[in-house]
């Protein structure tokens, strides 16, 4: 019987050594993982592209984020990406003070675009264009709560060309969940 068990469970060519998976993956070994901060603070830039997105964003800006900047478009008029340069995009901080897109985006690690409608595809393009030039990932979050499929499609389509990741969320509470997961 003992012989059989050895044949079943142990390969003589692969004995279980101190550094082998059988030991290394145990709960007991987990406490020897090196305790240190394995990442530096990220620079996340969150842009609300419309009034609905701004309202959802304002609800969470006071939470203790790790350096995330929250920005809105200072007026809700459509932006023509052909004629609007980065310096021309009317951005604002939550306190209403003006923000500069290039200053915000320089050195950013991730750009998050929030939209609850498809009304500002032009602004999305201007922001994403700057992010693309700097090789910064752009994630789009379409807030779909209470909207028709058609309206959601319009929102999604407004960001599809620019976002490396696009999420359609039914509830606004996904915004803090996502930003927390991304260490924003």
């Amino acid at each position, binding site marked *: 019987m003992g012989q059989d068990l050895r044949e079943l469970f142990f390969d003589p060519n692969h004995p279980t050594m101190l550094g082998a998976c059988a030991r290394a993956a145990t709960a007991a070994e987990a406490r020897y993982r090196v305790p240190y901060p394995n990442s530096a603070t990220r620079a996340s830039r969150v842009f609300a592209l419309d009034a609905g997105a701004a309202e959802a964003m304002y609800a969470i800006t006071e939470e203790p984020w790790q350096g995330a900047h929250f920005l809105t478009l200072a007026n809700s008029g459509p932006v023509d990406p052909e004629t609007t340069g980065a310096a021309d995009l009317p951005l604002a901080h939550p306190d209403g003070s003006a923000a500069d897109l290039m200053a915000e985006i320089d050195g950013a690690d991730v750009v998050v675009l929030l939209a609850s409608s498809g009304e500002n595809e032009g602004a999305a393009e201007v922001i994403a264009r700057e992010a693309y030039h700097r090789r910064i990932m752009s994630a789009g979050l379409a807030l779909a709560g209470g909207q028709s499929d058609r309206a959601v*499609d319009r929102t999604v389509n407004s960001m599809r060309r620019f976002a490396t990741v696009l999420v359609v969320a039914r509830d606004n509470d996904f915004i803090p969940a996502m930003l927390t997961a991304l260490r924003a």
Partner: protein
Amino acid sequence: MLRKDVNDLLTQTDPGTAMGEMFRQYWIPALLAKELPEDDCPPVRVKLLGERLIAFCDSKGRYGLIDEFCAHRGVSLWFGRNEEAGLRCPYHGWKYDYTGQCIEVPSEPEESGFCQKIKLKGYPLIKVGDVLWTHMGDKDNRPPEPTWEFATVAPEQTYTSKRWQECNWLQAMEGGIDSSHVSWLHSGSLKSDPLFKGARGNQYNQADKKPVFEVVESDGGLFIGARRMAEEGHYYWRITPWVMPSFTMVPPRGDHPVHGHFWIPVDDENCWAWSFDYHPTRALTGEERQAMIDGYGVHNQYVPGTFRPKQNKDNDYLMDREAQKRGESYSGIWGIAMQDASLQESMGPIVDRTRENLVSTDNGIIMARHRLRKACVGLRDKGTLPPGRAPEHQQVRSAARVLPPDEPFKEAMKDDLRVRPGVKQTSV
């Protein structure tokens, strides 16, 4: 990253835990039907959601799933005699029926009715497809029986296996919705595995290692779309459905059978990885079925007589560094299933998610956790039954398709992503 309290919430499934209660709202796979092949066959030990149980098929063909231990002195009923419509403890002859009701206490006068006062915890066990399913929750909230397509097509169209995975269910399940690892970890197998190779879609997978993701909520869970470049500006889409709490399907390749998984907690540090293959419109060929038995595709080879993979952590998963150098296997581990399992087990029994650094392409995982947490808390605090129980939530398929750039998959592939009896899977 995930806060420790949320990680604990999602990974703990013993009785009385919030996620444990959530799993108990569903029919979950408990055994392969072939583990109880005939009436009065040997009973089988089963551990699910932190509960030690014994499964048996009585003389009348009724399946039972009851507390493993005799109510008299705590003997394991694995040693029991399965005979004459019940499972009898060999120690003093106490006998239980398929519901766990004690029906004989030989030492007591039959007229006393004493045995009526003894009842082991028992759960229903039903056969749907190749699988015996159980519902471990309140019978007043029992959902309709499972309607997953892989379990309801004709027997010759489907094959199911299970393997013991030595880590928490959540880190195993998260691998099932993490589409971006395929182009790396499984890149060698896409060229050689008989259940994967040869599909045109594989070329897109290998040519574009930076997929773009779209995550869309469905009533039962999520659709996670991965988009890669195809010809003439078109996109190659692969859509993975996830249905709560732990059902996933792999997007199909060519006319190969469609694969998928259930990830079911054994306890907090072990889970069952259930793997199925089926074809919606034709019988599996002899070659396909043999490949599955031989451990190809999402299946695996076993330590004989067990459900433990032949490649396991005791033998370093038979790591082959030469095969890695030759490019046959990106990680040096043979087989798609064990390529995944080896890495997921290496994280430790329950990965510490406070230390992880997710990136935006991990949004499928982020959203799945978010929905699990909400459902779990909703059930715990308000008694709201979670998504994924309704038959219509289970009528999903994975799909792969090339689309023009301006067509959202959610609309263009709406029909492809639902079960259509008699219609084959949408695949490239």
